[in-house]
């Protein structure tokens, strides 16, 4: 924290280029909104300022056919957002270029909004499609910011949304620009990774960094630790988490059944059809670590109340793997209690590569037949 606090006092790096996507201060509204959007002066953190209040139930907001279509000379999208709730909110920025035809061919950049003030800086340079193919930043047709998982209505207050170019080499005041700087300064994010020199040397990805900044600014009691903890949860049932990326024919619910065998709250999963799945995305509800490094085993227990052996697998994808070259880790569920350990020291993809454990974007568990199974929390641990 000391190093982080010191870092926060560093001068803001100068940016060479800046362009408004959405000039909220001038009363500009998104032209593409399925979430409820409104201009307001009621942002509790900026009572006199104009902000865009977005009420996320379902839906998103952004721009269709934006005026500025060529983003290739910019590095980051930057904006202020205030979260009045006590819980973090997971969002993602979705980009569609001229060749985007579906979910797999768009590019998603997940991020988390902590309680309170957040200065978000998203690295758009190097964006890739969901399927891992190259993305064309020079032909943006649509962008939108969506909540990762549905839930109760949640208000967020957004400031101006700007694109910024590469930072200049010398720190100092912002370069002359046609556009005023957004009110809150933001953490710079040049190439997705920033190296901080000080009492400690840490390398963290940009999204995590902005979360650290946001947490510090919001006065959060503690920020995520840069070194891995001995245990982390992929799915923490004790905290009430539920998988959010499920097939339509899969039903999930928290349960007390088989709590004794599974060590507490259980997750009842009902697969109505074979080859369907439950799981979470990197855009999931905050429980999925972006970074699985430092762990070498994924453990959980499962109770199979039927008299059949079920064939299952856990699929894992990172930012560069598509559906075809994901990593599948098969396991079997015998009748009764099962203790599952999936080695994840190195996760090999189906195509022979390896999963980038620092950038897990999705996991899901698939079953080969209709079934009902009770799961414990899914844990990342070391041998």
């Amino acid at each position, binding site marked *: 924290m000391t190093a982080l606090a010191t870092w926060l006092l560093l001068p803001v790096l100068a940016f060479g*280029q*800046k*362009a*408004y996507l959405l000039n909220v201060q*001038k*009363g*500009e*509204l*998104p*032209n*593409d*909104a*399925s979430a*409820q*959007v*409104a*201009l*307001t*002066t*009621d942002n509790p953190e900026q009572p006199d300022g*104009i902000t865009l*209040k977005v*009420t996320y139930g379902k839906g998103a907001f952004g721009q*269709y*056919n934006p*005026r*500025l*279509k*060529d983003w290739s*000379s*910019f590095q980051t999208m930057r904006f202020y957002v205030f979260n009045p709730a006590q819980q973090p909110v997971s969002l993602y920025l979705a980009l569609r270029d001229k060749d985007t*035809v*579906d979910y797999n061919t768009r590019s998603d950049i997940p991020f988390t909004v902590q309680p309170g003030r957040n200065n978000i800086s998203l690295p758009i340079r190097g964006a890739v499609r969901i399927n891992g193919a190259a993305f064309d930043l020079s032909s943006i*047709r649509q962008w939108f910011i969506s909540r990762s998982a549905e839930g109760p209505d949640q208000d967020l207050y957004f400031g101006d949304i700007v*694109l910024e*170019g590469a930072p200049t080499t010398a720190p100092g005041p912002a370069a*002359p*620009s*046609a*556009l*005023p700087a957004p009110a809150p300064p933001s953490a710079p994010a040049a190439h997705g990774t920033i190296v901080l020199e000080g009492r400690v040397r840490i390398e963290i990805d940009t999204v995590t960094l902005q979360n650290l900044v946001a947490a510090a600014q919001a006065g959060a009691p503690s920020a995520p630790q840069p070194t891995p903890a001995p245990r982390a949860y992929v799915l923490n049932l004790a905290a009430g988490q539920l998988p959010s990326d499920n097939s339509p024919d899969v039903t999930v619910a928290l349960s007390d059944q088989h709590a004794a065998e599974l060590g507490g709250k259980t997750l009842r999963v009902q697969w109505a059809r074979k080859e369907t799945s439950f799981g979470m995305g990197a855009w999931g509800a905050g429980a999925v670590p972006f970074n699985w490094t430092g762990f070498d085993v994924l453990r959980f227990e499962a109770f199979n109340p039927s008299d059949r052996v079920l064939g299952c697998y856990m699929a894992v994808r990172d930012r560069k793997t598509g559906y075809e070259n994901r990593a599948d880790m098969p396991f079997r569920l015998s009748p009764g209690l099962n203790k599952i350990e999936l080695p994840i020291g190195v996760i090999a993809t189906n195509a022979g590569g390896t999963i980038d454990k620092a950038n897990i974007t999705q996991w899901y568990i698939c079953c080969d037949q209709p079934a009902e199974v009770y799961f414990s929390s899914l844990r990342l641990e070391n041998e």
Partner: protein
Amino acid sequence: MSLTTALRGTPHWVCALLVLATSCWADPAQDLLHEQLATLTNSDILSTIKVLQRVGKFVLVPHKEDSPPAVPAEMDRRAGFIVFVRNYLEEVYYNTQPRPSERVQTLAAFATPDEYEPLTFALCPLGVLNDLTVTCTDLTTATGAAIPAAAVDVRFVRQLARGAGRFLWTIAPEALETFDRLQLPADRTTQFWLTVHVPPDGAPGEYHGVVRISARGLPVTELPLQLVVLPFRLQTDPAMTYGWYLAGTTPQTLPAVLADMRAHGFNAVTIGEPSVTFAADGTATGDFSSWERWYKLLKDAGMTGIHQSGVSSLSAAVVRQGPRELGPGFDTLFVAGLRAYKSWLDAHPDFHVVFTIFDEPRETLLNSWNRNFDDTVDYISLCRQVPGLRISVNPMGDTGDRKDYTPFVGLVDVLNTHAWKGSEKLIALTRQQGKPLWTYNNGYSRLAWGFSQWKLGSQGNWQWAYFAAANPNAYSPIPIGGFENEGESNTGRGPTYCFPDRIVPTPRYEWVREGIDDYRYLYTLLQALKRAPAGAAAAIDRARKLLQELSDAVPEYPAIGLQTGTEAGGSGDPARLMAMFDHFRWRIALAILELQDIEAGRDPQAAGSLWSQFSRYPFGQLPNISAEAAATRAPKTPTAGVLAVEKTVLSPGAKLLYDFETDDCLRQLETDRAGAEDPFDPDLMPARCVADLSTYGKRALFYQPQDKAGGLHFINFDGDWRGFDVLRMDLVNPTDRPVNGYLCITDANVPLPYPRAMGAYDDRFDLEAFIVPPGKYTLEVDLGGLGAKNGRLFDMSRIAKIALSLDGNRSPFYVDCIRLEKRQ
């Protein structure tokens, strides 16, 4: 009035404008806006409007009333209001004052069985009217026939803030609302709208009834109502399609929406495509459940015209299988999908669908829903592999980016285009080839849907859009589901307002119905002419002369308006112009009766004939307009109301770029049109130096736009702007209403695709949101950090061009004293 704005900081002029609106303009407009906002259940809309007002992006423009305040007669004072009758085609605003000829005390109309016919009147309250009720009695004939009061739908016209240009709203008559009792404040003119639905079996004859107007503490006022029901039914042209582009639907309200459309004469809508999936062997399977629902809904509603669907969803479904659009492997799957469509249609032969190949082909700046000519032709070729599949394209004009679109005519089954001069060749070719011609997006005028369709030889007219999604906040003046174009209005666009529990029509929807009825009157006459016996030569000749007279009055394209010569248009009196519609409709009705008499072996001139029985009614008369009245309504000159402007004093050290003192400045202007030979062509861009309304020196530049888009280009000025803080230019808006302005600046580093271009959109500075009030206005642009939208800073030593226009290059303006200054 001199109002200035800075691009950064609070726009103080907005505050001034709002204060002006509050102090000088009528309060009734603000009251009506508040009443409108009070109907909303979504507080976010109110919050957004409040912010938009603060930043000058929601400005209420008053309606300007030309007529002087009406002087109440004794009978008006007793009644508590002035009642007047204005042609329903002309809008009645909150501050409308009756013309002398409109102060009549009777309502009269003619109609045919099963026809809907509007009758309207308006009240100018002399004081507050409490518990106002308006009711209508049964309508009866001397022979005992009756039309029950329930067949007369009585509504008042709610006035709502609706769009009057980007960021501008005006309170205007918008919504025909049912009511039990109203409270009307003094001086709020309010129109009442009665729609009589003559029963299908209604007996011909002269019906009489009474409209009773009652308010607490005031005597009841009775307006006699006369309705003449004609002895024939209007025929419907089976080849004619009247359709809506549907924008959103709510399943629960859709049956009511469709029934309402049918009652307004429509028989077609746009329907989405079925979803198609493909097996590994390329077999296409369609999920036609949505079409099954449409089939039943439309059939139940009697909507049996030719509906429009598309092929874009099918194309996307194929692309999701892997092939690139129109690339290798695409054709087989696409055609398989089309065959699935066709198979379903073959099984439903009474369900007629034409597939429009994407939307509005164009060669540049394509949206995801557009395709260029070549791709559209490729799609047509694929569609032609499925015999019997009916296809259409809808080019906006004869050419797109210089690409000739007339070959489309020979390739499709239905050609759909705008009814304007820009489609002259498409329209002519389609008629020449005997193919169905459709027109679209020609507006809500009675002319466009009726007489104009006949003149064009069109077999269909479509309009974007019917917003059919039920919405409790339908009266929101701003869009609530995304803001496609900044500053646009939610109100004033569609034919109705769809609430979860009711559909509220607009006056323009009723105009459209009357247009469609005009067409049916014409069609009925044309059918009667076909049946006319040889002995009816004189009547046939009279009918043909009438049709010729009508043809002469109807313009080639509906936007032009009726061509009625000095007897109407020259007088400048809208009442006389509007009366032309019923004038012709009544004469058509009489011509039908005459042919009916002859067909039945009766002498039309003899007593007892239909013609002699009905020709005695004085319908279709044109109001007499006195010269004095005509003069007061003559078209306003551009400088009406603006006689002089305050002179500008240059600040010390200012650099003057333009003062327009001599015609030499014309060499520093540029015509905004590719291919023009002369940099400044006064025929294309009529700007001239004039002595009027100069703000500096003795002359200013006056610009009268002629073409949509583009604007005035300033070139060859001193482009070294270094050392200055602000660009200022004086504009004079000579009209009586605020207009939206657009300014563009480029430097010499902007590549130009052709000499008169302003450069790529991202690579220039655009100011698209400033409102120029009537009179003098000084526009300011801060020069600090001036750059393009893509973030590139301009080379301030080489600024190259400035472009300027008002109201989408539709509004004239004066400009003077373009200068660079330092802030003091």
